[in-house]
């Protein structure tokens, strides 16, 4: 997977060159499916934020919506998490992923209704699934709660995406040579693979005893590490050099980074089984692999911060870059802390505490969602041929996202650490410790409320933009708030 060409975004043979087809033409070919997937993803994001807010509130206010079966805490939590992962993340991955793939392979997407049908199926399957969770058909493994009957619908939908992906693959003009493409191909393939294995080994023909817990831990972590994270990394690798207008330094390390990430990430999930009812070598393998993951993470850091170095003044000017930078920092922080806290001395404290939730949010929101937001801010004006109508709403979204996630991760991280430390003192009663976390849980609820405001801002802005795009014909020469940096302008025409 070594690359002969340069990743210099200003050169003709770079992955950023469109090889003759106008970039706008490629974007146009992706327009309908990307808009469809992204707008439904946004609806799921709004729903899951609302559900998460209620879930968070129920934790410190048990009387809130209590005593009604379908409103019970466990169902809210499952519905919130699943609509976030399979709704927001799953659909936005397809939107962003195909847009990136089309651009990177320098070819128009084959025009076909297959993708839209897949999108409709996915949404219906998920809607049925979330409804089923509230009705009590949820299952008891994290991220696998969706009821039995919604699974085949989701699988059919994903298979259609796959069929279509293969079609797109065959029609491409460029060889798979850029690191973003590897991550995207990986993500699109890894997800169905881990999902089917988990379904079969946990529900179809369940393995025995706590081997189920191994499968469940392996799956849950890989949803993040082998599905969400690779897409976000691909987007960073594409957008960062493009926006900064300079190549990635030490790009030759990219293949080492990619392959070592792919190799070690799969093992990371079982680290949390430390001290659990499984053979000790399993969690040891997880701990070691989390430490090994620091190698690819260091390579990514060299690439990202190397590209950014000396260019931070650009971050203030570009909303895309601002979101991107938060995402990059969150990713680095999450990986380093995860490797560190996996060691047994730390596990003794943080295992089973709110720190786990803080980690989860840092990964799927601080990192993944922020990068997807960045991509959307860059991508949408180009797809719709118009600018984001309200810079104020963009700012509102950015600051709400940053403050909201800060409150959640900070609150639950710190509160969880204190909770864990106090749990190690047998003289403090369990309930006192649990009640001691209340201020932190309230902090997290505020965080969710602020996130909700941000998501509403994003949604409004997007809806306005889509309306504008319908009303005005695509303006070709209009200056966009998210325009390419001047260096690139020269080349793209």
């Amino acid at each position, binding site marked *: 997977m070594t690359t002969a060409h340069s990743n210099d975004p200003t050169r003709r043979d770079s992955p950023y060159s469109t090889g003759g087809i106008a970039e706008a033409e490629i974007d146009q070919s992706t327009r309908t499916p990307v808009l469809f997937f992204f707008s439904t993803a946004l609806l799921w994001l709004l729903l899951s934020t609302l559900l998460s807010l209620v879930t968070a509130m129920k934790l410190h206010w048990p009387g809130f919506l209590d005593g009604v*079966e379908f409103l019970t805490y466990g169902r809210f939590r499952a519905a919130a998490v699943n609509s976030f992962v399979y709704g927001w993340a799953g659909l936005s991955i397809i939107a962003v992923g195909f847009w990136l793939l089309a651009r990177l392979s320098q070819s128009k997407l084959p025009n076909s209704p297959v993708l839209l049908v897949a999108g409709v199926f996915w949404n219906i399957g998920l809607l049925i699934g979330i409804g089923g969770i509230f009705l009590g058909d949820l*299952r008891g493994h994290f991220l696998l709660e969706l009821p039995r009957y919604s699974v085949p619908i989701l699988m059919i939908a994903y298979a259609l995406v796959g069929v279509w992906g293969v079609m797109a693959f065959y029609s491409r003009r460029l060889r798979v040579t850029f690191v973003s493409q590897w991550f995207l191909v990986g993500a699109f393939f890894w997800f169905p693979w881990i999902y089917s294995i988990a379904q079969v080994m946990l529900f179809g023909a369940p393995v025995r005893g706590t081997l*189920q817990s191994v499968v469940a831990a392996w799956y849950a972590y890989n949803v993040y590490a082998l599905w969400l994270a690779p897409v976000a990394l691909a987007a960073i690798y594409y957008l960062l050099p493009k926006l900064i207008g300079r190549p990635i330094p030490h790009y030759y390390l990219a293949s080492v980074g990619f392959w070592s990430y792919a190799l070690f990430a799969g093992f990371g999930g079982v680290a949390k089984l430390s001290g659990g009812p499984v053979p000790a070598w399993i969690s040891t393998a997880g701990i070691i692999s989390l430490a090994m993951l620091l190698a690819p993470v260091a390579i990514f850091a060299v690439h990202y911060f190397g590209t950014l170095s000396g260019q931070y003044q650009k971050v203030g000017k570009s909303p895309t870059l601002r979101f991107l930078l938060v995402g990059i920092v969150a990713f680095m922080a999450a990986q380093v802390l995860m490797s560190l806290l996996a060691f047994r001395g730390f596990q003794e404290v943080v295992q089973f505490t709110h720190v786990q939730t803080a980690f989860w949010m840092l990964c799927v929101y601080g990192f993944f969602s922020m990068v997807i937001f960045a991509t959307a801010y860059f991508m949408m004006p180009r797809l719709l041929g118009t600018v984001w109508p309200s810079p104020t709403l963009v700012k509102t979204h950015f600051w709400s996202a940053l403050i909201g996630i800060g409150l959640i991760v900070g609150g639950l991280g710190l509160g969880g650490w204190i909770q864990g430390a106090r749990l190690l003192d047998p003289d403090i009663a369990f309930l006192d410790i649990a009640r001691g976390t209340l201020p932190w849980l309230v902090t997290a609820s505020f965080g969710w409320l602020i996130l909700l405001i941000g998501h509403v801002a994003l949604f409004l802005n997007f809806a306005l933009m889509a309306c504008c795009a319908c009303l005005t014909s695509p303006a070709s020469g209009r200056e966009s708030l998210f325009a390419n940096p001047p260096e690139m302008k020269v080349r793209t025409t």
Partner: protein
Amino acid sequence: MKNGILLFIGVFSAVALSWAILILTGFQTYGNLRPYVDDITGDAFPTPMTGLAERGRAVYAELGCVSCHTQQVRRPGFGVDHQRGWGDRQSVARDYIGQHQVYIGDIRIGPDLRNVGERDVPEFDWATWHHLHLYNPRMLVPGSLMPSFPYLYEKRKIVGQPSSRALPLNVGDGYEVVPTERAEALLAYLRNQRLDYSLPEAEDLTVEAWERRHEQEPE
């Protein structure tokens, strides 16, 4: 194209490796554990779940108890689970082989439940306390953060004799509260959560073993 196929193979192998090493090897090494049979008494442990308990397992999943409770005891010396009364030894793989779906959980918003079936309750008898607690946790544990599950119980008019299963609750003249079948099933499942037998592989993971080690090498 060549590039594409290589990439595909590589990507496939990467995830296949973690699957093969963790899950397949796990399956080989402990996927077929049998119950442990005590030589002297001939009893087999862990005891299998009854049909009622198995239905209770479904109720446990349905109500999302797993989002707040773990079912795994850490070994003495790694945390203080035993001092909190959550079990005198670490729970090990064999303890779970009787369960069709294993919910070891990963967050403790509430206490661990792995040995709740043998745990003493502060008042009433075991079943009554747990019924009342599920019906309304704050009635027994002021300040509890657990949701209430009153829909597992039925408030009904007393016809003839009050039911022997009625909970000791005062809900107005002529009325009583009785557990539904789901409540009984859930309790059977909780009752099945116990660690009051020993297994050879857990002998080193008990409180006694830990205390013995502690005495030998004082800090």
